[in-house]
């Protein structure tokens, strides 16, 4: 009975995660077809309309009279692009580096891992701040900064996984009958690592979205007048005492997205553990 409850919960958290993420994806896709208003269009005479006041603007307007719902919708594009994009890049480079360092264990591998350790020693926001200062702000800068931040995690993961399984019999066997390293890598290692990588990927997207939000809050991320949820929160901060409603929509949007990806990541992780313990 307890077992059933547990599986239910584990699945339910993943289901919730999937629902949340799908909502966000849906909003994003919808934004390409229809948005109630032009998200960047200003209407000074209509500023600070609360959601309850006026049925024309479902979520109200901001300090420039822009429709909040439309901005949330278009903001989902940036969030997903930066979040998923940066993790993709980081993961790709990280996996490559991790594989390389596992392959050439001695000097190159060791050097790469040291650099990864070095990068990991920087607390996230600090690294992001430094990198953004150099590569510039905006969507591009954020993506670069966050991808670099993601690289060490994936590199280390891949490196340790590969070193772990290398001594496995079937790998040795594959080597003995002449498969090249590349073949082994793609045919054996990748499938073996895939579950863990996907889990990591999902959680990483959650983190990426969080970091982007913080960067925008500090003024180092997406720049006005573009809409990014983090930026909207930062702009809402100025008026928080008089118009608290400004912070509600973007805040909830962020929480939904980060929560969604984290839940999926966790759910996958639990599935993995279950599968492994069964094996």
């Amino acid at each position, binding site marked *: 009975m307890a077992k059933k409850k547990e599986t239910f919960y584990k699945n339910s958290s993943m289901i919730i995660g999937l629902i949340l993420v799908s909502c966000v994806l849906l909003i994003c896709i919808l934004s390409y077809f229809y948005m109630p208003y032009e998200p960047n269009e200003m209407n000074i005479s209509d500023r600070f309309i609360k959601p309850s006041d006026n049925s024309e603007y479902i979520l109200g307007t901001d300090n420039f009279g822009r429709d909040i719902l439309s901005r949330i919708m278009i903001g989902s594009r940036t969030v997903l692009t930066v979040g998923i994009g940066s993790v993709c890049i980081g993961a790709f480079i990280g996996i490559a580096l991790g594989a390389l360092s596992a392959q050439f264990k001695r000097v190159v591998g060791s050097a790469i891992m040291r650099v990864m350790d070095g990068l990991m020693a920087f607390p996230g926001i600090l690294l992001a701040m430094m990198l953004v200062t150099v590569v510039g*702000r905006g969507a591009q800068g954020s993506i670069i900064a966050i991808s670099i931040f993601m690289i060490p995690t994936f590199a280390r993961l891949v490196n340790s996984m590969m070193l772990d399984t290398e001594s496995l019999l079937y790998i040795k066997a594959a080597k003995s009958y002449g498969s090249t390293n590349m073949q082994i890598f793609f045919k054996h290692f990748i499938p073996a690592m895939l579950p863990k990588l996907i889990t990591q990927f999902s959680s990483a997207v959650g983190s990426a979205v969080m970091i982007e939000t913080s960067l925008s809050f500090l003024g180092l991320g997406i720049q006005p*007048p573009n809409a990014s949820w983090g930026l909207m929160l930062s702009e809402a901060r100025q008026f928080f005492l008089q118009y608290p409603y400004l912070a509600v929509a973007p805040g909830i949007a962020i929480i939904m997205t980060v929560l969604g990806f984290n839940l999926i990541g966790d759910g996958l992780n639990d599935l993995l553990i279950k599968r492994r313990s069964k094996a």
Partner: protein
Amino acid sequence: MKKILSLLMALVMLLSLSACSGDNGSTDNGQTTNPTDTTNEKTELTMGYQTDPEGLDPQRTAAASTFSITNNIYDTLVGVTSDWEIIPRLAKSWEISEDGMEITFALRDDVYFHNGRQFKASDVEFTFNRLKDAESPKAGDYENIVKIETIDDYNIKFSTEKLDVELLKWFAYPWTAIVPEEAVNNLKTEPVGTGAFKLKEWVPQQRIVLQRNDNYYGEKAKLETVKLMLIPDATSMIAGLQVGDLDIIPLTGDQVTMIEGNPEYSVVSQPMNAVQIMSLNTNNEILANEKVRQAMAMAINKDEVIEASSFGYGDKIGSHLPSTSPDYYDTNSVMEYNVEKAKELLKEAGYENGFEIKMTLPKNYQIHVDAGQVIADQLSKIGIKVNVELVEWGTWLSEVYGAKNFETTVVGHTGRLDSYAFLKRYKSDSDDYISLKTGEVDALLEQALQELDDNKRKEIYQEIQIILANKLPAIYIQAPHTMFGMSSNVEGMSIFPIDVYDFKDVYFK
């Protein structure tokens, strides 16, 4: 288990250590959560501020955040009132020669620096030489002074190369504050001046504490202590006022509604001696076309911009002088808001389908960022696509101002006490980041510099303003208001035509 316990103990010890090593003591009796004590004995003013000064050495920085504070620690030869009148300070009187090329100051003989030494003319000479040396940001402004002569301990003469009828006003700026030679090396962190307050403590990122100078030569300050607390967040700032932690804060337009009408607080507001302008790089091919600039000006609804960026607390302007300047002339009707006409002009200029242009905004200044965004939106309505880029103030200074690497920008310029100084950048050969290259104001500016008759000079400036309003080397937006919000028992805080705080006359009712 034991290991865990010892680890915990270590952590606790570390915590208490760090707690105790927190800064060395300061006088703290203003940090209460009770609303203001309205006893007559309240002599400590707590003020919120947002930007740390860049050192407290008046000749080594150009930051307004510095001068707000140093204005209380040091003195200048002359001061300026909120009505733009020049009054004596360290100089008790002055005499300008017939030809206007020399000015002689008679100095007070009862002034002492905070380190106890008496103030003398040699200090003035030292300060001005320092002001003109390589490390001083304002050196360029004082090139006209070619000779400094100490006549005796309390008399000093300055000679200029070219006639400048407003010479006196140059001695009122906070960067001419007199410093003692012996303390020069540490002025940044240990300022020594003759002012009504001494620096008691400056903990960067936290607070600045000023203490009354009981040896002040003038009327002693009514306040015993002024505590400035650094609060970078505007919301926390006004919350601080409302909770009673702060007695006075700089206020932004949107916050005024929060406390006005409430008898517990009062608001002081006045247009600044500063202008917000949209600077245009007339070297740019598109912007070099006068009709384009005029079209842009007509497409901008300044009232909306002022509403959005200052919540209405700004005076619309049409030219480069702020509404508070005695030489101000209203040119608002020259380029009125007219979208149809703007489109026509654009067509005439050959850009019927609009064009794309970049706008660089200084991210540290919300008012310019907001104004810029609204302007970008308004320009899009006549087909001009504006690509907004926010940069750090430092980058703005080196890229836009220094390297002139920009197309358009929105920024504020702090006013001067004399209009020539403020307008001289428009000379065609000024090499400033904006200027009127076609030279229409060159001759007029030269004239103004030498015109002794006040009325005639005013007329010249009037003409200059009209030309600028028509030719538009920049589009002139507003003179924003400076505002303070304070507990209703705070009196005496005035707003000056130079960007400084003056706590001398502040007191609690």
